[in-house]
């Protein structure tokens, strides 16, 4: 009897969160699944159209394959760069010097700035043909780069999330602190140099964290919307047109909510598939401290 009462109280405490989840997450998610099978525009009553949206997307929409390839390329560029950069900086920040706290703060700051008009103006200022980057290049004797040319624009906007590597870096710092110093000492006694220690102690013990960051950043990158939206608006010539932009454009610029829902669900399936793939490969390279392979 006592356990039952306890359970009831527990559920009551959970109720606000459950209600919020149901109202603001579960209900919209399943509504959008339903809408993806309708022709909902913004003001009409939705009419069931079966798989028409999906057929349109895969067979008749020239921008969908473009958006998908852009998104995948973007992910393959931005995620390794961001995670790699975060790891390198985190390693540097474990060195005990003066002002180390200041350096950590400064490197972390960009990640809390998010995306905004101010950031987009900053990016323009940096990467305009007469912007700061090209001025620096000029000073170093290199030719100016056309950062917003259709061939380079995707790379330029992917620098925004890479610049905001702070959150990944902080997680790496925590992970690095958890590696027992004895292992390094043992390695040094056995004659391992810095690189060997890195390869055989740091990386394996950090691998769960690398795995975590990789998966989280991959999911974020596949959904990316802010950086193309504020910097290039999806242009030039759809070079920075990511799936996130496509969903927004279809839903809010063209008022085609049903179609936008279909694209959203397709994106979700893509993210799910890639995440499962990464999880499966993790068997081979992620080591957990309890000795079991992942």
């Amino acid at each position, binding site marked *: 009897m006592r356990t039952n*009462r306890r359970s*009831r*109280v527990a559920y*009551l*405490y959970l*109720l*606000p969160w459950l209600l919020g989840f149901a109202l603001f997450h579960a209900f919209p998610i399943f509504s959008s699944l339903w809408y993806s099978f309708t022709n909902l*525009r*913004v*003001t009409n009553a939705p009419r069931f159209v079966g798989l028409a949206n999906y057929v349109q997307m895969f067979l008749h929409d020239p921008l969908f394959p473009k958006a998908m390839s852009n998104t995948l390329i973007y992910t393959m560029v931005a995620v390794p760069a961001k995670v790699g950069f975060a790891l390198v900086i985190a390693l540097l920040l474990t060195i005990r010097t003066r002002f180390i706290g200041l350096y950590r703060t400064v490197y972390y700051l960009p990640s809390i700035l998010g995306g905004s008009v101010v950031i987009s103006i900053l990016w*323009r200022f940096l990467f*305009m*043909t*007469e912007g700061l980057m090209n001025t620096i290049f000029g000073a170093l004797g290199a030719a100016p780069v*056309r*950062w*917003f*040319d*259709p061939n380079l624009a995707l790379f330029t906007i992917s620098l925004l999330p890479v610049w905001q590597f702070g959150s990944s870096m902080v997680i790496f710092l925590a992970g690095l602190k958890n590696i027992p110093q004895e292992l390094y000492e043992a390695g040094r006694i056995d004659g391992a140099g810095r690189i060997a220690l890195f390869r055989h102690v740091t990386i394996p013990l950090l691998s769960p964290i690398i795995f975590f960051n990789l998966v989280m950043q991959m999911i974020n990158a596949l959904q990316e919307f802010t950086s193309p939206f504020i*910097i*290039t*608006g999806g*242009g*030039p*010539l*759809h070079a920075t047109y990511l799936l996130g932009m496509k969903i927004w454009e279809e839903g*809010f*610029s*063209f*008022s085609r*909510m049903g179609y936008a829902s279909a694209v959203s669900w397709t994106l979700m399936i893509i993210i799910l598939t890639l995440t499962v793939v990464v999880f499966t490969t993790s068997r081979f390279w992620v080591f957990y401290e309890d000795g079991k392979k992942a």
Partner: protein
Amino acid sequence: MKKIQIVLIVALLVACVGALGATGKDEGPATLRFSWWGGESRHKATLASIAAFQAKNPNVKIEAEYMGWEGYFDKLVTQVAGGSAADIIQSDYKFFPQLVAQGGVYMDLGKVKGLIDTSGFEPEFLKKWCIYDGKLLGLPTGLNSQTAIINTTLMNKEGIAWQRSWTWDMILEEGKKLHAKNPAYYFLVQGPENLVYQVLMPYLMQMTGTNLIQDAYTISFTKDDLAKGLGYIKTLLDAGALLPLDQSAMFGVNIPENPKWVNAQAAMYLNFTTHVVTAKAAAKDQVIKTQRLPMMNGAKQSGILVTPAQLISLNEKTKYPKAAAQFVDFFFNNHDSVVVLKMERSVPAVAKAREMLSAEGLMDGDLAEAVAMGAKNVGLAIGGLLNHTEVSKILQNGVELVGYGKASPADAASTTVDSLLAKLAQLKAATK
């Protein structure tokens, strides 16, 4: 103990839900929301007009919702979808085809007939832009025309005569010379979207003498015509007369923000007259004047649009139609409103308002002159469908293909016309 815990938790829940649902009905005095876009000076002027109205009508409160142009349409569409659009809405005439087709957005002003004095508006202008299916759905704030905005200080310095009837060929010629003299200078600055509305469309309209896309979802220009228009843009780029697109695209339609304009390294840009004020403010110590939009020799029509600067409408679903109508009447016709609004929404469309401004010496001569020049040479109105986002994006894509050197004008024209026809067919099918 346990029972009290349960009671407390439930009470907490009820309080939360209660707070969420506390939207009481407003009784008595009216609260209106007025949404518009603009720059700082327009916001200040509009707020002053609202304040003047509230002073005379203490039982009406007007909440101002203002922002910049970027994202205004998307926000409006979202609000319309959610039923939360403002009571008084400022729209661009380009919004009308899409939103009127959707229905249920703009109120038929015939419903508040006696409350708004519409005698000051030109009936022909209203018929062209504001009356759909016999219903008056909005009122024009000002007259907007297309013009060539010129940095005369720069032109004088470089020995280029700025006062003339510009043609497209002259722009190419002067542009080539200017850029050859100083590679940092570009004669013409336009973003991709601007190139469509201010160069490509007038060029094609002048060439074909038609309004390009008809309401029947047909087009009146060929692939060859479009190839000629795109070819002209390519020639400008190759000659260094037009700023390369990768340097202008990020500023969108806000050319005054482009460093080339601010640093007086650009001689001209083509845009609506509403930009004259911003262009002047951005190029601080330069003398900015306007001239008539460029035409081609043997143009079949001017291709110059005279449009409403903005349209003020009432929300079909407003709870206070009478109060809203009273404000709109005050906004357009009352002296106190007219003199604070000045020319923030271009030359007023109401004749009496123009007189009031002239009497007080508040007319910006350059702006008034630019509008008059356009009005004198007004061409056909472009087909309403050209303002449809998806349609104009196809044309913009064509311009970008040529602008970034990804396709020849002929190929780009071919792809663009094909996409355009496909899109028009799709839009037509959707109306059934």
